[in-house]
């Protein structure tokens, strides 16, 4: 079994209006040293181990559905879980 975490944000070149709004609100709370906020999406997936390459599978999930590659970028972490038999 794999535990996979996927993080999706707007590409760096694209203004993230939600992040900007959150930053403004943090400034109002007196956290004036907040320089930037990026808001994004977070997915946790539990994926069964099969014969398929897990990196390729996750890559395809990201480009085919989890992100719109026109405007979003993604990173992911894959952790193989060790299961105790019996």
């Amino acid at each position, binding site marked *: 079994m794999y535990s996979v975490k996927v993080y999706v944000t*707007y590409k760096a070149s*694209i*203004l993230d*209006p*939600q992040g900007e*709004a959150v930053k403004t609100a943090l400034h109002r709370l007196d956290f004036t040293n907040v320089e930037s906020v990026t808001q994004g*999406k977070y997915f946790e997936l539990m994926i069964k181990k099969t014969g398929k390459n897990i990196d390729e599978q996750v890559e395809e999930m990201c480009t085919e*559905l*989890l992100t*719109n590659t*026109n*405007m979003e970028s993604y990173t992911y972490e894959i952790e193989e879980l060790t299961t105790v038999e019996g």
Partner: protein
Amino acid sequence: MKYAVIRFPGSNCDWDMFYVLRDQLHVEPIFVDYRETELPEDVAAVLVPGGFSYGDYLRSGAIARFAPIMTDVKRFAGEGKPVLGICNGFQILTEARLLPGGLRKNQHLEFVCQQQELFVQNNQTAFSNQFEQGEKVMIPVAHGDGNYYCDESTLQQLKDNHQIVLTYSENPNGSIDDIAGIVNEQGNVMGMMPHPERASEDILGGTDGLRLFQSFVENQQLQK
């Protein structure tokens, strides 16, 4: 010939489109459920209405792209036949990669619902031939995710191929180059954020939207 209006869970303005086609243009509209796998025979054009298909989960239009009917809509578009996506329909067509770019949340984060003045940038398309080149038209918008984006090279391509059909005179959402509506490279697939079906009768405040429907209906009748 029939005009297929696709209905997803969460579609709206589908009846408005149906009404415009049936009662004002006197052609034969037909509703097609998203679970169908094939469009009816003798379809002249496919219309993808506005709304919030699948609750806009993940991204607006992202899940609708996988609806069973979309495979045949892609086939239909691939044959060069007219497909028009309005509002959520525009979002669905970009997610389905029938149109370049994508729609982001409005820059000011607010839902906009208002009359909108547009410029006709290209009146040589199947969807805009009833307008004058450069004409100012009034068609309302109602969206939260209408902020069109594409990268620099795509934008250049849109300009070079005259794919930008409608622009805002005062940009309501932050879209790149004030883009309100585009066509694909072949010119047979159009997506737009404004709602022409809401501007198709004087009692609704104007008929500029009706001419957009007339454009492809008359085009179709000429081809008969």
